[in-house]
């Protein structure tokens, strides 16, 4: 269970070392002559740069509280997927080269030589951790396996040992502005298509702006939102909401990516990709930044962006132009999460909503790892969902909020060749969804993460066929009564609405947007 190795082309695009085409299934990984030296020197450097790394190498007592908390351990049963053991893979090398006991007693002290077998094992398991941080919630010392995995991946990166499913998007994002390599004219085209669909649905013509100087707000969302279903419905939701509010905002084709796959390769690469957002905000002269629904994007925005590329003193503290609310919790980064923005709108009664338009849905909410454990967004999305849907059900305790489970494909694992691992890792989440499906007939899994929208769709198709996956702003758009809109016949996906018939004028010809709802979407 693994993803294909990173290609030379992608590594070269961002100037990563030891670029070469290689194949994990082959014996020879074409490593540089002095790979041990590079690895150990890299380790030494990071031990002196990250307190987290040094501390987490030193203080684990192997109590095992983390063991059955990892979705990959639950799904695979592989003991090396217990977070403690995944960390021990590197800790054993740390002991051997950086502690006296390990140097003196070797194996007895739990130390291992860094040989090729150990390196391959580190590679294999570093890419079986989605850096979801669930283990760190339960660890009595807060040891965060994500920190260790991040470092291991950095070290592997020094040897050119990344995975292509991460490196391809990194290279594309660096050169073209987004992970999917969508060039500016294509991006505009995509939005035109989405706006056509919106017009068909609502009768309202929306013309969003790109790279517009002087706009009040720069909006940034993961490119997955305008690339594929069901993310596109969420993106259409943003467009409809902003249009209805008359928001003075712009998209950017240069900073067209909210997500950051660089974060899955090295901190430096993450910083290089992230720099575009503030740079673009500055160039366009916007007042503040609004960010879309995404998981790891928000870990980066909350915990890293300001440190890497701040201070954003050229921006203003975000203030909703509609309600006047000042988002005090973003007074330094000057970037607000759209779910905070929308929750505030609804609270102030600024949106006309008809939740009955979501009556065909019984909704549950999946807390995304990063917005949960690296931020703490729990109530905002629930408030929004409950305002736009009449049927909402929580998954069982132990599987939501800070204890939520990863979709199984986070941190750059969504590769086709990696399907078995993804489905196994997706089991705990899927199983909790199955529980509410069986108990309450839940048919729609809402979330605020672009990777979730892609990954959970696959996972649900396998584990819970028929379960739909949606972004929260798709639900908002369903319920949103827009000024001057025509009567809605269908939801965003073109599925007929399950509404009490008020005006029985059956318009058989009212063309629904082409059948985009194919493939595992709920159709009640």
């Amino acid at each position: 269970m693994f993803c294909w190795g990173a290609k030379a082309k992608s590594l070269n695009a961002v100037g990563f070392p030891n670029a070469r085409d290689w194949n994990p299934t082959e014996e020879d990984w074409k490593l540089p002559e002095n790979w041990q030296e590079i690895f150990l020197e890299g380790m030494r450097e990071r031990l002196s740069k990250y307190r987290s790394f040094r501390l987490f190498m030193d203080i684990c007592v192997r109590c095992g509280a983390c063991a059955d908390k990892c979705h990959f351990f639950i799904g695979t049963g592989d003991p090396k997927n217990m977070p403690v053991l995944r960390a021990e893979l590197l800790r054993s090398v740390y002991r051997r080269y950086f502690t006296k006991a390990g140097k003196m007693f070797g194996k007895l002290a739990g130390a291992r030589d860094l040989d090729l077998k150990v390196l391959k094992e580190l590679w294999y398991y570093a890419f079986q951790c989605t850096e979801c941080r669930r283990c760190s919630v339960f660890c009595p010392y807060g040891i965060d396996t994500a920190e260790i995995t991040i470092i291991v991946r950095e070290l592997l990166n020094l040897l050119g040992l990344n995975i292509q499913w991460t490196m391809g998007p990194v290279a594309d994002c660096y050169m073209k502005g987004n992970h999917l390599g969508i060039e500016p004219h294509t991006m505009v085209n995509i939005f035109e298509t989405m706006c056509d669909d919106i017009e068909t649905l609502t009768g309202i013509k929306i013309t969003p702006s790109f790279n517009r100087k002087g706009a009040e707000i720069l909006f940034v969302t993961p490119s997955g939102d305008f690339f594929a279903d069901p993310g596109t419905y969420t993106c259409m939701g943003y467009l409809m909401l902003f249009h209805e509010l008359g928001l003075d905002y712009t998209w950017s084709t240069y900073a067209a990516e909210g997500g950051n796959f660089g974060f899955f390769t090295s901190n430096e690469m993450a910083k290089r990709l992230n720099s575009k957002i503030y740079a673009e905000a500055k160039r366009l002269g916007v007042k503040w930044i609004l960010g879309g629904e995404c998981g790891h994007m928000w870990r980066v925005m909350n915990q890293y962006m300001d440190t890497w590329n701040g201070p954003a003193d050229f921006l203003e503290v975000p203030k909703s132009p509609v309600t006047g609310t000042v988002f005090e919790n973003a007074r330094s980064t000057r970037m607000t999460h759209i779910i905070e923005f929308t929750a505030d709108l609804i609270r102030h009664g600024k949106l006309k909503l008809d939740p009955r338009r979501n009556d065909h849905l019984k909704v549950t909410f999946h807390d995304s790892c990063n917005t949960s454990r690296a931020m703490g967004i729990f109530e905002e999305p629930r408030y929004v969902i409950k305002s736009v849907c009449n049927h909402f059900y929580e998954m069982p305790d132990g599987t939501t909020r800070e204890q939520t489970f990863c979709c199984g494909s986070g941190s750059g694992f969504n590769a086709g060749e990696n399907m078995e691992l993804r489905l196994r890792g997706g089991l705990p989440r899927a199983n909790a969804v199955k529980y509410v499906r069986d108990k309450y007939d839940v048919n729609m899994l809402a979330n605020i993460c672009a990777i979730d929208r892609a990954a959970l769709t696959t996972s649900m198709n396998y584990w819970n066929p028929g379960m739909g996956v949606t972004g929260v702003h798709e639900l908002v758009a369903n319920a949103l009564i827009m000024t001057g809109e025509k009567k809605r016949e269908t939801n965003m996906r073109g599925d007929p609405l399950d509404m009490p018939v008020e005006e029985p004028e059956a318009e058989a010809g009212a063309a629904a947007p082409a059948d985009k709802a194919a493939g595992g979407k709920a159709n009640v």
Partner: protein
Amino acid sequence: MKAFLPFLAVIFLVLLVIVGVKAASLYFLFGVIVPYAALLTFLAGVVYRAVKWGRTPVPFHIPTTCGQQKTLPWIKQSKIENPSTTGGVVVRMLLEVFLFRSLFRNLKTEMHEGPKLTYGSDKWLWLAGLSFHWSFLIILVRHLRFFTQNVPGVVQIVGSLDSFLQIGLPLLYITDVIFLAAVAYLFIRRVAIQPVKYISLAADYFPLFLLLAIGCSGVLMRYFLKVDVVSVKMFTMSLVSLRPRIVPGVGTLFYVHLFLVSTLFAYFPWSKLMHMGGVFLSPTRNLANNSRMKRHVNPWNYPVKVHTYEEYEDDFRAKMKMAGVPVEKE
């Protein structure tokens, strides 16, 4: 093997001191030199390790948030599980250090036919861990009566509370029972629970055997062999006053106890036992989740190569113009 060698090591330590004292009469070595050296190693080692950690920078602001963030005024923040202020962090750390808050969350995940996953509460590890650490602390405090001429009131109160059951003579200390039971449980779970056995190293068994041996030797001295407490105190006070002298009549078992404790002290800074100090420095727990409100500075932040907008526009100018996207240079 991983458990057996540490077991042998502790047996060896016990035999070493018995032979050393009984056969070779190395009273001064085991009674004075070793304890002093162990204490110095402990102090120097703990400081060394703590300073080494403390001097390593915290480049990023990475608290693990376990509750609702500070957000809109009408949404209730979880001020302890997701603190945004220093006060909140302090309370979070106190709960962590004194009550093992995170371990209290422990769940037992079980897979049934179906597959069907269930998550049950599992507090045994928390209970045993907390019982062990607290009873150990109380026992240490009680021992201060051997190291102070006028025993402080607090120590006396702790001692009398600890023996309030009034069982036997000398009175049974509850913490002695809890300590041995908890350590025994921590050992048994390491060998009986398969995943825990799999992750355990010699370095996990050694401290457990050592603690068991320390506890047993203490219990034997107090309740069974009834060591001459007056002599012991004369001896310990001579150590405290830095005028060490060997007091006859304290018995070999006392030397065993002292030597094992010395071993624990000397071993402590170089082992996983340093988690005691480390927990305070853990950046996922001791930082407030306020990095959107207040900029966290990375001391080694450095400029990186970026792909600038100008370079981007150069690559795509024609396509941008074609699509009606504004450009800087025509």
